[in-house]
């Protein structure tokens, strides 16, 4: 138990420290790298709680895909930090409001947990005993059996958002020559090569 507590404080401390670095680092690429570190340690915290599936998915999705695209964009764009900092005071009230709402929500969730211990059991899907089913299976039951329609609806909304993004950025450019693989493969010898008997001294 001592080791578990030590590891927990290690992960938690690194998450908090790197989260602070994300917003205070001067170089945007460093910010993204600290964000990745924070994700990683959050995955470690999940592991400590026995939620190994969530931990791995966090690494695969956020670190392996989302943060790569982030890093990609931040490296490609030459972000001017000084210019971004100018709007800091202007956006401070909105940011503070969002932070406050999140804080109140967190306090309400945790408060319900502490003050009324029966709340969690009363929710739509009770948490199964971790010694009976692995958490991969438990999550599968919740998502694919119990809430399958809501899950599919969420998927459709994401798909539509993706199509929207593609439509917004799609543009037809004139004069672009694209490779048509099927056309190339369908080409016959007769279309490409012509053999001619050239009489000597006559030319083609």
């Amino acid at each position, binding site marked *: 138990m001592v*080791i578990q507590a030590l590891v927990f404080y290690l992960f938690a401390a690194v998450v908090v420290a790197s989260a602070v670095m994300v917003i205070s680092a001067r*170089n945007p*690429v*460093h910010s993204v*790298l600290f964000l*990745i570190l924070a994700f990683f340690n959050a995955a470690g915290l999940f592991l400590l709680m026995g939620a*190994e*599936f969530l931990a*791995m*998915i966090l*690494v*695969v999705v956020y*670190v*392996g*895909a989302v943060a*790569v*695209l982030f*890093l*990609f964009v931040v*490296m*490609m764009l030459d972000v001017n930090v000084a210019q971004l900092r100018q709007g800091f005071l202007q956006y401070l009230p909105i940011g503070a409001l969002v932070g406050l709402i999140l804080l109140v929500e967190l306090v309400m969730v945790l408060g319900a947990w502490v003050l009324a211990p029966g709340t969690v059991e009363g929710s739509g899907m009770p948490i199964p005993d971790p010694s009976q089913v*692995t958490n*991969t299976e438990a999550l599968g039951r919740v998502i694919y059996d119990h809430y399958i329609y809501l899950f599919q609806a969420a998927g459709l909304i994401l798909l539509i958002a993706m199509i929207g993004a593609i439509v917004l950025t799609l543009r037809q450019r004139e004069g672009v020559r694209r*490779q048509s*693989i099927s056309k190339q493969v369908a080409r016959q010898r007769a279309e490409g090569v012509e053999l001619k008997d050239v009489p000597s001294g006559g030319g083609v």
Partner: protein
Amino acid sequence: MTDFWSGYAWPFAIIVAQIMAIVVPLLVAVAYLTYAERKVIAAIQLRKGPNVVGPFGLLQPFADGLKLLFKETILPAGANRIVFLAAPILTFALAMVAWAVIPVAEGWVIADINVGILFLFAISSLGVYGVIMAGWASNSKYPFLGALRSAAQMVSYEVSMGFVIITVLLCVGSLRLTDIVLAQQTVWFAIPLLPMFVIFFVSVLAETNRAPFDLPEGESELVAGYFVEYSAMSFALFFLGEYANMILMSAITTILFLGGWLPPLDIVPFNWLPGIVWFALKVALVLFCFLWVRATFPRYRYDQLMRLGWKVFLPFTLVWVVLTAGVLVTFDWLPQ
């Protein structure tokens, strides 16, 4: 005090010993993979390959390693020092970390975790950071271009690799690597899922940045891609990481499709050999294919690489996932 010894110190010593038992043979394997690569390519091109240092040139990898060790590590003037040095360390460390969950024989694994295959997928998807960080921190044009290429390439091929893994998992019903191997006792998945096996192997070539998909380091266009600015030991770490990744990916292919440590047939002459020997033989076979491909095919063009990943592999694997699921449900073959 006895509690401290039996509770903490002794298990810690055992874990360290297990880690050494995996990492040391792995590093030797990496060293001899570089030798094997030069010998195999030499044989394919009717040359002799390294044959001067030691008998049959067997000491060549150690000579190369010593040479790199004694050279000077150069930090480019405009480089971002910390990221520049962290990149090769990250690449190398990730290639080692993944081996914690690989079962090399029945029960021979450091951590037989519930979500083993997801762990491998997560770690292999992190490999791209070493490349991107190296390319960006070098503060130079060619490495940067190499890094961007590599990021796009690795992310693209991960998608189809994910679908291939899902197909296998449908047939297994567990994310544990030991279960995946044991599910292949009747038939290796390479036979019923042959198209997936081929796609997985090609995706692995792209994922490890090997020929014919070695665009991130394409020397004819980008000099050496993302590690142009690296020298001495920092370069050696990239090199070791790349080859350790090749071995790791071969091991994953073996576990997913070639029955891991299981003998081809469970009859007398085959099951005399211990499981680890079969595992090593299968990994060596896949590695030979890596080298064979490198000596045989020219490099892909970048747009063709993207087309293959997104327009060929992705739809095909997607259809195959649905097809496999349909067949399993129709014939009631779903694993319990």
